[in-house]
């Protein structure tokens, strides 16, 4: 959020008290759950779309469970890095609602293209959270089949995956898989920094002119490593979409309900053949960019504290508690499950074997290469010449 931006959301302002049955909200920021945990029944977006959710109590509890589990597993991964068990970790702390809300909005047939921070989306896709940890431990570079999980491999080059998502979405349309309720949609994740990349802007052009069934999901966590948003843009990011000819909307990314509603609507538009859209999920990276980063060098504690008050999990808990959707026993049980899953994750990370050195020659080409065969054989002879010696 650029300082002094007239179109800004509620950052820095105290949200006016709203009744639980209020039917209008800030059109610049779709919100269905205030930081205090108050429900806003529905919000009408700038194009007249009414955003609302209609969850059962069990579904509300399920979302809360997701948020807590995702944060706990993330914290465990950070701890594993601090103990030398991971080479690096890109924490999602603070972005749980943006990821759980959008991740749960995906239907089974939808395809997701993550950056390297979408551990929460991965979790909501029903994927074992161990899957990306090989990458961060340094035992592989991803190693999963994107089509098996409907979840592409993590992409570290900023913004490159948005073009992959666009091409995939073009393929969905070419396959005739849009236009119905069970049509397929694609979601491309990226951050505020990525919006400056050429690839992201080319993806916007492509998706627009080919009317691709694609949702561009930008988690604006306010920082690209150390650079604040105003170094990337002069206007709110969601407004970029207008120049490319498709809708853009901003949602409170710390509000799992609003994020779900907005993403589900955009995905359903895409699957029905109505083309791409851009969602800016307005959130905050509470932790460092990665475990190698030191955010105290470039942002002040009071800013972090202000965002602490908008925590995505605390507001959900306040809502569940106030509305008596969940009781103390439930919260304890969720915490216990999170603890168990974290311990399980830790044990399995520690058990991850190092790859055999010779495997570096595997899978360079589907059809192989005589040059590599030769190098592998040479390496093998060299390596084996040390057998039994203390090298």
């Amino acid at each position, binding site marked *: 959020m650029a300082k002094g931006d007239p179109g800004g959301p509620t950052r820095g302002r105290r949200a006016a008290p709203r009744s639980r049955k209020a039917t209008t909200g800030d059109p610049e920021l779709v919100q269905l759950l205030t930081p205090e945990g108050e429900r806003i029944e529905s919000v009408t977006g700038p194009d007249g779309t009414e955003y609302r959710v209609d969850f059962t109590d069990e579904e509300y509890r399920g979302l809360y469970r997701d948020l807590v589990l995702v944060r706990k597993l993330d914290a465990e991964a950070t701890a594993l890095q601090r103990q030398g068990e991971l080479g690096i970790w890109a924490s999602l702390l603070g972005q749980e609602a943006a990821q759980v809300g959008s991740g749960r909005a995906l239907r089974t047939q939808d395809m997701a*293209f993550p950056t390297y921070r979408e551990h929460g989306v991965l979790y909501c896709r029903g994927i074992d959270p161990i899957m990306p940890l090989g990458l961060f431990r340094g035992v*592989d*570079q*991803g*190693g*999963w*089949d*994107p*089509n*098996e999980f409907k979840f*592409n*491999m993590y*992409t570290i*080059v900023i913004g*490159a995956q*948005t*073009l*992959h*998502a*666009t*091409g*995939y*979405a*073009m*393929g*969905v349309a*070419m*396959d005739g898989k849009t236009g119905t309720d069970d049509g397929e949609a694609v979601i491309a994740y990226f951050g505020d920094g990525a919006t400056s990349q*050429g*690839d992201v802007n*080319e*993806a916007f*052009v*492509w998706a627009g*002119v080919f009317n691709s069934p694609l949702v561009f999901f930008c988690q604006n966590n306010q920082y690209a490593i150390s650079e604040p948003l105003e170094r990337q843009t002069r206007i709110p990011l969601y407004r970029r979409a207008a120049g490319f000819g498709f809708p853009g909307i901003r949602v409170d990314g710390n509000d799992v309900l609003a994020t779900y509603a907005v993403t589900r609507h955009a995905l359903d538009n895409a699957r029905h053949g109505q083309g791409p859209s851009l969602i800016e999920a307005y959130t905050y990276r509470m932790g460092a960019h990665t475990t190698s980063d030191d955010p105290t060098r470039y942002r002040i504690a009071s800013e972090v504290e202000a965002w602490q008050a908008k925590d995505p999990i605390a507001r959900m808990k306040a809502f569940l508690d106030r509305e008596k959707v969940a009781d103390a026993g439930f919260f304890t049980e969720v915490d216990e499950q999170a603890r168990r899953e974290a311990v399980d994750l830790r044990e399995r990370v520690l058990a991850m074997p190092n790859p055999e050195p010779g495997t570096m020659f*595997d*899978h*360079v*080409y*589907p*059809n192989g*290469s*005589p*040059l*590599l065969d030769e190098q592998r054989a040479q390496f093998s002879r060299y390596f084996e010449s040390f057998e039994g010696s203390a090298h």
Partner: protein
Amino acid sequence: MATETLTLGKALNVGLRKALENDPKVVIMGEDVGKLGGVFRITDGLQKDFGDQRVIDTPLAESGIIGTAVGLAIRGYRPVCEIQFDGFVYPAYDQIVSQVAKMHYRSRGKLNIPMVIRIPFGGGIGAVEHHSESPEAYFAHTAGLKVVSCANPQDAYVMIQQAIASDDPIVFLEPKRRYWEKGPVDLDAPLSGAYPLHSARVARAGTDATLLAYGPMVRTCLDAATAAAEDGRDLEVIDLRTLSPLDLGVVYESVRRTGRAVVVHEAPSNVGLGAEVAARITEECFYSLESPVLRVAGFDTPYPAARVEEEYLPDLDRVLDAVDRTFGW
């Protein structure tokens, strides 16, 4: 057997048409490849016959062409991307080198990117800057990519189909100044029995020295060999055809017989394909060599203005001068 005389460009066109016919997952994409048929007309008539979902005019952005082709490949398509000119491939360099080349490896073999990236390359057509470059070394240096170049119409017709049928990502370099050269093409030759894509081939047998070339320089070397024959020198010419991986068995066999080798390419000599070929020949044929392996190449300047490109490009005389030097060692 339907053997026709076709230009190299037309042979590519017919090869692409066959690939579109044989596999519904093949899509052609690039700038101006549709109605116009490409600036060199290599895709002429294909959109008309296969529709704009199979032959796709893209927005004017090279990274977008390759990046969206990656997504189409993940979806199960076999994209054939046209980069309009050699000097315009660089905006797509990240997608080619960091994405296309590495997807199979990163997925531990679970994902293939069966993509062909066609690039008209090389000079000799009197073009303005950025239209005459030879970027092959950048791609040949990148693990995960394969790089080939055709030199005659028959190879153009067969190799483009082989490249499209391959599950490897392939940079397919087309010798643009040879697009209009004609030769016989056997249109019925089945792919299954064709000469393998990643293999070099003797283009002319000889006994006194070995000339090594690919793409546009194969014709130059064959002409040099014809001229040398009038002087009583019998030169062997090998068309390398595949630049990554190199196929050097036939080269070693030749150099062990002739004792002399000259590598010829348009690209600058410094850290080029010729350096790699020379090093490998030296390692494998050291005791057979009568002289060092020499290189005839473009100079280490930016590609010069068109009115001096004839001096920049290796030609018959520069090739024969190098052959003479191998005999004077």
